[in-house]
């Protein structure tokens, strides 16, 4: 029963997130004074082409069609949702005409997924492991030093870290490439994989490092408090070994709130990953959003941004759903 309630509430949140997020994407352009259609028309006119009135009208019409600006607001709204949720068709990208937006997104997606998944999961695992050691033996010098380091790293914004890494590892010590370059035509081989890792190392490191601070600090506090619990004392009385107490008794309990925290922070982590991608020129969805913004590629922008809202919502749902797997109090009545 508990599990069902849990599942239900998470699903409702999921639906709401997508609804509100996509609505925001829909509404923002419509509250602005300039219309993208007019902007487009102005661009075309600036190119010096002379067009007859009828041509101008038909161009405007097709543009409005493409931008989903035809019909009443309600019709536009439902039409937009249909596009986002059902067809995934945002039309062609203007900067990469005539490649459809969906294709560009599909190309960029695996890169972003790879980077985001590995970095956030690795950061979470590593941070929690360090936090566990620090919290289990909180009186030691090492523990206090670790917490101090984590406190220094935690407030640093993603882009600063990215910039610092870029300065250090591409200028000062030229270990890594300045911008992302992979010969996409290379066949899938160890060489290609090495290339990918080499080029992705700095962005991944940047995301992991910034994430680490928070997980270390919070896990340290959690482990320290769980270590005071009665069942840990009883485990000691039974003669259970310290390593086993640390993992099976303390860690397994302290990690539960960390899973919930991960789900909550995914939006923030995504924000950071986005900036990191842009700064490193990483060929993921982030850079796609950025270039679409710079080039006022309206279709591509709408497509990538709607997509990222859905992606973050889905990732959050998945993380949320792993929680019952680890907490039997939610799984069973």
């Amino acid at each position, binding site marked *: 029963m508990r599990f069902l309630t849990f599942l239900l509430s998470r699903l409702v949140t999921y639906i709401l997130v997508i609804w509100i997020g996509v609505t925001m994407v829909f509404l923002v352009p419509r509250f602005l004074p300039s219309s993208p259609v007019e902007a487009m028309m102005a661009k075309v006119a600036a190119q010096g082409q002379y067009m007859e009135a009828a041509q101008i009208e038909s161009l405007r019409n097709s543009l409005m069609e493409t931008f989903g600006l035809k019909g009443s607001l309600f019709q536009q709204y439902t039409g937009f949702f249909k596009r986002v949720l059902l067809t995934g068709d945002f039309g062609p990208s203007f900067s990469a005409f005539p490649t459809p937006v969906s294709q560009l997104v599909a190309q960029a997606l695996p890169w972003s997924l790879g980077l985001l998944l590995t970095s956030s999961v690795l950061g979470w695992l590593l941070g929690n492991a360090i936090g566990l050691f620090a919290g289990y033996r909180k009186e030691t010098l090492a523990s206090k030093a670790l917490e101090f380091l984590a406190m220094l790293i935690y407030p640093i914004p993603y882009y600063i870290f990215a910039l610092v890494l870029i300065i250090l590892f591409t200028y000062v010590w030229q270990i890594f490439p300045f911008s992302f370059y992979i010969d996409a035509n290379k066949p899938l081989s160890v060489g290609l994989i090495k290339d990918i890792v080499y080029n992705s190392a700095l962005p991944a490191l940047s995301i992991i490092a910034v994430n680490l601070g928070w997980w270390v600090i919070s896990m340290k506090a959690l482990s320290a408090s769980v270590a005071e619990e009665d069942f840990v004392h009883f485990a000691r*009385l*039974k003669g259970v070994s310290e390593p086993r107490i640390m993992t099976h008794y303390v860690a397994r309990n302290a990690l539960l709130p960390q899973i919930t925290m991960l789900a909550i922070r995914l939006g923030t982590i995504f924000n950071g990953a986005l900036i990191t991608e842009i700064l490193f020129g990483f060929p993921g969805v982030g850079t796609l959003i950025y270039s679409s913004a710079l080039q006022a590629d309206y279709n591509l922008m709408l497509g990538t941004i709607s997509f990222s809202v859905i992606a973050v919502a889905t990732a959050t749902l998945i993380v949320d759903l792993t929680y019952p797997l680890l907490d039997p109090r939610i799984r069973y009545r």
Partner: protein
Amino acid sequence: MIRIQDVKASYFTPAGEVQAVDRVSMSILDNEVLGIAGESGCGKSTLIKVIYQFIEPPLRLVSGRVEATTRTETGETAVMDGAALRKAWWQYISYIPQGSMSVLNPVAKVGSQFLDAVGKSTAFKNREELYSRVTGYLRELDLPVDVLKAYPHQLSGGMRQRVIVALATFLHPKVILADEPTTALDVVVQRGIITMLAQLQRREQNTLVIVSHDMGVHYQLARRMAIMYAGKLVELAEVGAIVESPLHPYTNLLIGSLPRIGDHARRQGIGGAPPSLLNPPPGCRFAPRCPRAMAACQAADPPPLEYRPGHFVACHLYGEPRTGGA
């Protein structure tokens, strides 16, 4: 048999040394149920922690020792103390802690928490043998074997306490220390636990040491009873003797404060409060509250003496023993 020799154990806190157990000596015999009674803060919980050799900072064993003597089937004796006793946890001596509600790991199955306790033991060839031993034991105790597959939150409070008793005894230890086993349980469940412990002891013929501030528990279960006050042992005798003819004034007042069926006289509490263990007064700790205090009581701390056979008391009123010393 366990011999506690002149044990002094204190908590070293920032405020100072809290002398929780101050030079206590006693013997715990084989095949007996010994109750340790006293008010909160008298040192009884600390004493059994010391007996168990579970001494973690800020607690420290300042002086004295605890010695366990076992006799094998061939008649040989072996003496264990300190580290040896710690090695024998759960097999020779085990501990039932206070507070059954929170003593089990909420995210691990009950079964795994049984198996947990046997990490170092080599008496079992493999997990299957161990598991069958556990299930067999549960059946002996009339507990459902399904309990092993359950999680702690799925068990009722009473069932949880019984499971914890089973957990502490499935390796058939010779000595079981129980710290307030019935506190915070409702009376029906209390009765069940008391019965369970009594049957267990009778069957195994082992030693059960029960710490409780509830005199009723001692009366039902214990054969001998030790009364502690402010870190000191003040009286030790068979339960009947304690109840019918208590010697120490504190014991007297303690027994007098208990309700009895048929006795309609008003119950008397004991005025005043126990002394601080940070800086205990010289002399007898109970003197400030004692209705029969004498001059000698403020000056010197009375040692426990065997006033009657098997009846020890630490009080200046009984300075000359009728028999030899303890």
